[in-house]
């Protein structure tokens, strides 16, 4: 597939509709009820059909990377909570992983287990909320969203008990975790995890067989595998097109090799596949959690030789990445030996998954544009940084 073979990587953009009259320019956002935060889509409509779509963001841009360059390595950790504010613990883990690669720190066994447990809990509540918001856009007046948030509250209470805050956990440190598990926390996690399959069955019963959901989502916003790989799409959207690429299995980071879990793959790459894959991934996460909770060892949670203050990694650079619920979340750090990182770059899965939003929406219906955008599952804190 040479560069030229991949010729129409840019969809042809029409200026005038077939009927020759000028297009109806509609700006969806930035305070459109269904954009996940402040995000604008300049859509040109020919009747109900979308002819041109330009995503515009930057409303939530606060230059997180410049702030990180002026602050110490530790001071950026609480800011990573604010990147994808639905999954603060996976953000922390990605940043900690990158710094550990940069400085060559080891992480004790127990900390690795705690990281896997908290990451999988984050993945479940993120996928549940993503499905809830997608159904909200489809018009199901919040019922699936409320069921998702009911489960999410239980998980956030666990996070609050462990880290002190529901969404802004600031829990991981370079070489381990910040604080030991409170007594009785693991039992509470076991009870919450035992209740999750019931919630997933309830969501499936409510939605999976629903003919209206099938009509609205099957065959809509289809993504081809080769375009998906070339456009750097990662996470659930990539696996929906049938490409088997899950960073937990590819990079073997953390201790995911010890757990037996499967990676679901879709074949159609449309919205229904994204919904179903998120449900199946939630089930896999429950399996991982069960195994992790069963054999979590005792021991230290922090690498003794890693210092909290005055942390100065040797000069050099490193790129660390994890399988965040929204896709591949990577941190690229360049250190020049000083306590502040020379360059701190976040690879945001949400922004890069939006690169081909126009390709998926061209020719679709206005009502579907909102659905396709919702099925990508983005958070503006991460897109705009």
């Amino acid at each position: 597939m040479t560069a030229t073979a991949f010729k129409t990587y840019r969809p042809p953009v029409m200026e005038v509709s077939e009927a020759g009259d000028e297009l109806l320019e509609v700006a969806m956002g930035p305070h459109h009820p269904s954009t996940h935060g402040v995000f604008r889509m300049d859509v040109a409509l020919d009747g109900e059909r979308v002819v041109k779509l330009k995503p515009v963001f930057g409303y939530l841009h606060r230059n997180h990377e410049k702030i990180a360059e002026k602050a110490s390595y530790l001071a950026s950790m609480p800011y990573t909570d604010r990147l994808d504010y639905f999954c603060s613990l996976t953000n922390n883990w990605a940043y900690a992983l990158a710094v550990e690669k940069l400085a060559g720190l080891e992480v004790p066994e127990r900390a690795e287990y705690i990281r896997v447990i908290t990451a999988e809990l984050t993945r479940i509540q993120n996928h549940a909320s993503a499905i809830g918001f997608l159904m909200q856009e489809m018009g199901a007046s919040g019922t699936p969203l409320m069921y998702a948030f009911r489960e999410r509250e239980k998980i956030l209470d666990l996070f609050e008990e462990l880290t002190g805050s529901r969404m802004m956990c600031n829990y991981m440190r370079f070489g381990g975790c910040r604080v030991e598990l409170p007594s009785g926390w693991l039992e509470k996690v076991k009870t919450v995890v035992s209740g999750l399959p019931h919630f997933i069955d309830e969501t499936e019963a409510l939605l999976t067989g629903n003919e209206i959901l099938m009509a609205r989502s099957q065959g809509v916003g289809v993504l081809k595998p080769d375009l998906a790989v070339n456009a750097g799409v990662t996470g659930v959207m990539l696996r929906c097109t049938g490409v088997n690429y899950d960073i937990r299995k590819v990079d073997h980071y953390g201790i995911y090799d010890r757990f037996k879990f499967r990676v679901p793959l879709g074949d159609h790459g449309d919205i229904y596949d994204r919904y179903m894959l998120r449900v199946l991934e939630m089930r896999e996460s429950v399996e991982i959690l069960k195994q992790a909770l069963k054999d979590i060892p005792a021991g230290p949670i922090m690498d003794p030789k890693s210092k909290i203050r005055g942390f100065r990694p040797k000069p050099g650079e490193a790129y660390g990445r994890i399988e965040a619920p929204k896709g591949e979340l990577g941190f690229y750090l360049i250190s020049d030996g000083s306590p502040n990182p020379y360059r701190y770059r976040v690879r945001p899965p949400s922004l890069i998954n939006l690169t081909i939003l126009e390709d998926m929406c061209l020719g679709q219906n206005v009502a579907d544009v909102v659905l396709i955008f919702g099925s990508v599952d983005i958070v503006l804190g991460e897109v705009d940084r």
Partner: protein
Amino acid sequence: MKTAEEILARIKTALPEAGVEVAPNPSPSAQHSLLLSPASAVAVASFLRDDAELSLDYCSNATGVDWPGKEITEKVKVAKLVEGVETLVEEAVKRVEPGYLEAVYHLYSVKHARREIAGPVVLRMRTGNRTDQVTLPSLTPVWRSVEFQEREIFDLFGIVFAGHPDLRRILMWDEYEDHPMRKDYIDPDDYEYEPTPHDEVLKRAEMRKTEATV
């Protein structure tokens, strides 16, 4: 996966005239990178993507790095006539190294994801200097994933990408002139446009910093 040297060898065999060399990375992560000359960048990139053996078909991350110019005072051995005798004398020579802007790409292979990979294959491209020669060839025709990321590099660093389908500012508003991520960027003093107690705290922090440096 292969180490940077092996990949360099493969590129050399396929594209002999391409200007590529290895830039070592001292950190324990050992992710050495390949420094491409802008002229042959697109050719090398297409080769890396289409080569059956490598097939680096997924460009995960593209970002910019700003290396401002540094004055380096080096001890240079200079032959100098000292009282008629030819002797080598230590001398401190102040040399200004010209700064440059850099675009870094991290590549992975989805096709060969099964094989054990040591880490990303890192490509680097450097601009002439930081003022006028700031154009680099865009790799969007090769990997569509860098389209928005190259727009962000243009927006925050000011590297102009030749061949990019739609080079506009992505995060800042279009009328914005400066490039915020450059090291010599001066923050506007009070962009919150309203006096906040935070304002005094910042001012005091500035004052204390100036006292510390003076």
